[in-house]
């Protein structure tokens, strides 16, 4: 075994300090707060109190799952078409996808309020046509729309980058061996793009399940998600211990998801998660 040289140690130092300061220390704080009460003594009360949030967790997972599925349905064909287009079209499409990401997340969410509100753009249009106002904002659909809109690029990009690398002669080989376009997709393109799909799913599901604010603004506070509950514990109730316990539960949940997804991707090797 080679001994780590002094040089390597010095080069690694900033990263190690960074990791301790910004990754390990906060995690430790979360665990510490979750397992103590206000006075700082050990308790499991915060963990048992999570039972109350069963519904919130369920809703978070459900909404995030639907949002992820919708993202996948939109992103997959789009990524495929992009990868098959000529270079200038690819650049234009990429720009259109990236453009919203240059704007602040909050501003984007606010603009959806003005689009979906009862006196918003869509409803004004419908009213003018005599189709009359439809309740759009403050519905589960609006919350999911917000998630899809914000996280769609994270689904498109990994799939697109895998599709670009796909050797087109494999498609021709499949056609050559008797595959119609649909079979080519099912038997060659999809299995080969699976690592991109898996990483896209992770990159959309994780932020969706832990998001807050979207549900407050587009759901009118009626559909609280885990992220909102955590925020409330810290910002309104000042119950850091319960907030930390919620965070811990969420973290464990995400970790489990990622292990499962990674295992899934490993079988087809070459996953690019994290």
């Amino acid at each position, binding site marked *: 075994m080679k001994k780590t040289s002094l040089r390597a140690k010095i080069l690694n130092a900033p990263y190690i300090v960074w990791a301790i300061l910004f990754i390990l220390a906060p995690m430790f704080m979360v665990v510490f707060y979750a397992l103590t009460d206000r006075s700082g003594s050990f308790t499991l009360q915060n963990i048992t109190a999570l039972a109350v949030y069963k519904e919130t967790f369920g809703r978070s997972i459900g909404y995030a799952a639907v949002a992820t599925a919708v993202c996948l349905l939109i992103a997959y064909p789009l990524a495929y078409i992009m990868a098959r287009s000529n270079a200038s079209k690819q650049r234009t499409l990429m720009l259109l996808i990236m453009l919203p990401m240059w704007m602040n997340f909050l501003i984007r969410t606010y603009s959806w309020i003005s689009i979906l509100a009862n006196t918003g753009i869509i409803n004004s249009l419908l009213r003018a046509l005599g189709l009359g106002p439809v309740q759009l904002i403050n519905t589960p659909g609006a919350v999911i729309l917000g998630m899809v809109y914000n996280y769609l690029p994270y689904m498109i990009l990994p799939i697109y980058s895998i599709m670009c690398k796909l*050797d087109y*002669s*494999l498609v*021709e*080989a*499949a*056609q*050559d*061996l*008797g*595959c*119609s376009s649909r*079979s080519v997709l099912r*038997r*060659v393109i999809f*299995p*080969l793009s699976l690592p991109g799909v898996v990483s896209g799913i992770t990159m959309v599901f994780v932020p969706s399940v832990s998001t807050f604010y979207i549900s407050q603004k587009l759901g009118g506070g009626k559909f609280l998600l885990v992220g909102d509950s955590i925020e409330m514990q810290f910002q309104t109730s000042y119950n850091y211990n319960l907030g930390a316990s919620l965070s811990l539960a969420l973290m464990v949940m995400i970790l489990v998801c990622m292990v499962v997804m990674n295992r899934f991707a490993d079988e*087809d090797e070459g996953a690019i998660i994290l």
Partner: protein
Amino acid sequence: MIIDLKNISVSFDGQPILKNLNLYIRDGEFITLLGPSGCGKTTTLRIIAGFLEPDSGEVVFEGKVINGMPAYKRQVNTIFQRYALFPHLNVYENIAFGLKQQKLPKEVIRKTVEEMLALVNLKGFEKRSVASLSGGQQQRVAIARALAVKPRVLLLDEPLGALDLKLRKDMQVELKAIQKRLGITFIYVTHDQEEALSMSDTIVVMDNGEIQQIGTPTDIYNEPKNAFVADFIGESNILDGIMHEDFSVEFHGMRFQCVDKGFGSEEPVDVVIRPEDVDIVPPDAGMLRGTVTSVTFKGVHYEIIVDIRGFKWMIQTTAYAAVGDEIGLSIKPEEIQVMKKSAYSGLYGDYSSFSEEFDELSDPQAQTEENAAEESL
């Protein structure tokens, strides 16, 4: 006749790739499309496979026009240049790919795959991942995969290009043996003239999107139709000549007896003499005399460059001559091949700028260029 290409034209970005190509292919023959980079040979193959539609012309398969028929419905299969094996499948699944698509019973698939693995000498490789195989083994899997679906015609697009010389020679013999055994038509694309000569029943020499000559390997070598073919297949000394009358041709200011006829009286022609057909004799006994300017030992023979009145000849002989020697050349009438003048006249056949190093260097580069040009189609 299994395939008939009629008046096929293709252009890409206004650049003609194939110009009014006509070619028929007999059932069961080993036919090779031979030519330099960008001559249109791969394009021709892709048209037969169904990956590319010609701008005009008909593709006929067993008497039926199959223009517009998608690749997956055609009874032809392709061995791709870089094999195009499916990386997510193992050897067995790769070979079974086409059979599964036909929804054959599992038992039939298993038996066929076993047969194919035996055919390409890869027994016991079923469970291996394709990435773990060497180039030669991947090549064999690609052959097994294409043959498993029992095609009528197998298309091979420079299949041995990525293999080293020794392996390439072995695979040439094996491919030829497989073709003989199965009795199916092989259409083989290569830029390697040696490969073409040693494997083919018929060679189609192409250049610039046009067929230059079709014939058996012997015909192509011994009776090249024009300066391009003479130069591309083997080494040739190509001289300006005048056909005075039947059986009499003049070059280097001398009259020679030959076996060609049917040219106009006093018609300007190209004369081809293969380097191995020239005998070295004492200067006085020779029909031509010249000075040796370079000698290279090649193992079986010497390669000698001789300057005759400013034109450099290449001679391959077992007799030795030293640089600076004055030697005589003797040529038998049947070794002189007279060709009509063509667009290629004067472009080839003089060895004054001959350099082997250049020859070898230009080859792989030309190949990548062709890949780039033809893939973009």
